[in-house]
C-alpha cells in the first residue's frame, strides 16, 4: 500500500488571536523602550531613526493583527539601524580616545590636532588641542603641548591668573597641575608635555 493513499487532512490549529495581539503589543512596548534607551543612553544623543513611511495624519484606531505585526517589525528594523549607528559612534569614540592618549604622550606628533568631548562621547564642551608653546617660537623650536580648553565663551575675560602662570607663561597648559577650579575652568591632564629640543 502506498503511503500516499493515507492523506491526513490539514487542519489549521486554533489561534487565540487575543493572546497573539497582546503579545505583539508587549513586543511593541519593549521595542519602543529599547529604541529610546539606545538613543538617549549615549553621548551625544542619537536621533531616533525615521519611519520608512511617514503618515501625514494621526489615525488612531484598533490595529488589525497584520498592522500590529507591521508596527512591531518596523520598530525592530529601526532598533537594528540605531544599534548599528551606535556601534559606529562607539568605534569612532574609541578611536578618538586613543588619539587623545597619543596626543598627550607626544603632542609634537599630532600638531594642530583637536579632540573635543563630543568626539569622546563625554558631556561638556571641553576640547584638547595640540598647539605650540610660546606661539611662533615654540612652533620653530618644536615645543608642542596639549592645551585643554573648556570651550565656554565665558572662560576668557579678566580673572586673576593662578600663581604658577604669573611668571609670564602663556595661558593654561596641561602640564600644570592646578587646584580644583570652578566648573568652567578646564582641568589639567595627566601627562606633562615637556618642550622638545629643536
Amino acid at each position, binding site marked *: 500500500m502506498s503511503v500516499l493513499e493515507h492523506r491526513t487532512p490539514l487542519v489549521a490549529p486554533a489561534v487565540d488571536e487575543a493572546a497573539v495581539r497582546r503579545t505583539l503589543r508587549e513586543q511593541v512596548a519593549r521595542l519602543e*523602550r529599547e529604541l529610546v534607551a539606545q538613543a538617549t543612553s549615549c553621548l551625544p544623543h542619537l536621533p531616533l531613526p525615521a519611519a520608512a513611511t511617514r503618515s501625514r495624519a494621526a489615525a488612531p484606531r484598533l490595529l488589525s493583527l497584520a498592522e500590529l505585526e507591521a508596527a512591531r517589525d518596523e520598530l525592530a528594523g529601526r532598533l537594528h539601524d540605531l544599534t548599528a549607528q551606535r556601534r559606529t559612534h562607539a568605534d569612532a569614540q574609541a578611536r578618538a580616545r586613543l588619539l587623545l592618549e597619543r596626543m598627550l604622550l607626544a603632542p609634537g606628533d599630532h600638531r594642530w590636532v583637536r579632540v573635543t568631548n563630543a568626539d569622546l562621547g563625554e558631556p561638556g564642551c571641553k576640547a584638547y588641542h595640540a598647539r605650540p608653546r610660546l606661539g611662533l617660537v615654540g612652533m620653530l623650536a618644536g615645543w608642542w603641548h596639549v592645551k585643554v580648553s573648556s570651550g565656554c565663551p565665558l572662560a576668557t575675560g579678566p580673572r586673576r591668573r593662578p600663581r604658577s602662570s604669573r611668571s609670564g607663561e602663556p595661558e593654561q597648559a596641561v602640564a600644570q597641575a592646578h587646584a580644583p577650579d570652578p566648573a568652567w575652568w578646564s582641568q589639567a591632564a595627566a601627562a606633562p608635555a615637556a618642550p622638545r629640543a629643536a
Partner: protein
Amino acid sequence: MSDAGDEDDDDPRRGEVAADVAAEHPELRLWWLPARVPGRHSPPELRGRLRSMSDRLRGAQALALRSQPIPHAYRVFYRQIGIDPDVHRIPVEAVVVERLRAGEFKPYSFLQDAVTVAVMETSVPVWALDATGVEGPLRLRTARDREPLGRRDPRAPWLPEGRLVVADDAGPLAVLFGDVAPGHLARPDDRDVVLFSVAVSGVPLVAVAEALWTVTDTLQVL
C-alpha cells in the same frame, strides 16, 4: 475619582470605554471633569509660574523626557493605535518642543496656561471642551462610518469607521490624541468647560487625577 453620575463635582468622572476598545486596551481609561474659568487672561502669578517653568526646563531634560515612565507609556500607546510618536508628538513633548522653539512658555489664556502647567507637571495630557457643546457624559469609542466630527460646523470632517474618538451622547467631539471637533474646543472667553484626560497602560490614575485637579486648582486659586 468617581464614576459618571456621582454627585461630587470636584472628583474626576470616569468615562465609559466601548467594549471593543476595552477588550483591546483593558487599561485604557477616560476621565473628565467640568470646570469654571474665572477669566480670559492669566493673572500675574500664573505668568510668573510659567516663567519659572521656562527657566527650569533645559534641552537635556527635553531629550530625556521620552525615557520617563509616563511619556514612555503614551509613546507606546501611540504605536499600539497606529500613530508614530516621532511624527505626531505626545502632548507633553509637543509642549516642551514649543517651549524650546519659543524660548519660553508663552502665556495665551487663563485656561490654556493652567493646562500647560498641568501637562508639564504631570506629563499627562489634558484637553478642554466648551461645556455648552457637550451633551451627557464623555465616552471613548470607535467612530461609525462617515460620522461627523462635531456638530457646530457644517463643514466638519467625516470620520472613517473605526477611528478612536471621545464622544458624548450626540456624537464624536474629538479624535483620541488628535483634533478636537471644530467649534467644540474651549475658547479663551468660555467660562464653563469640560476637561478630559486619557490614562493608558503604565500611567497611574493618581497622575491623571493630579493633572485634572492641577488645572482646576490653578483656575480657582489664582
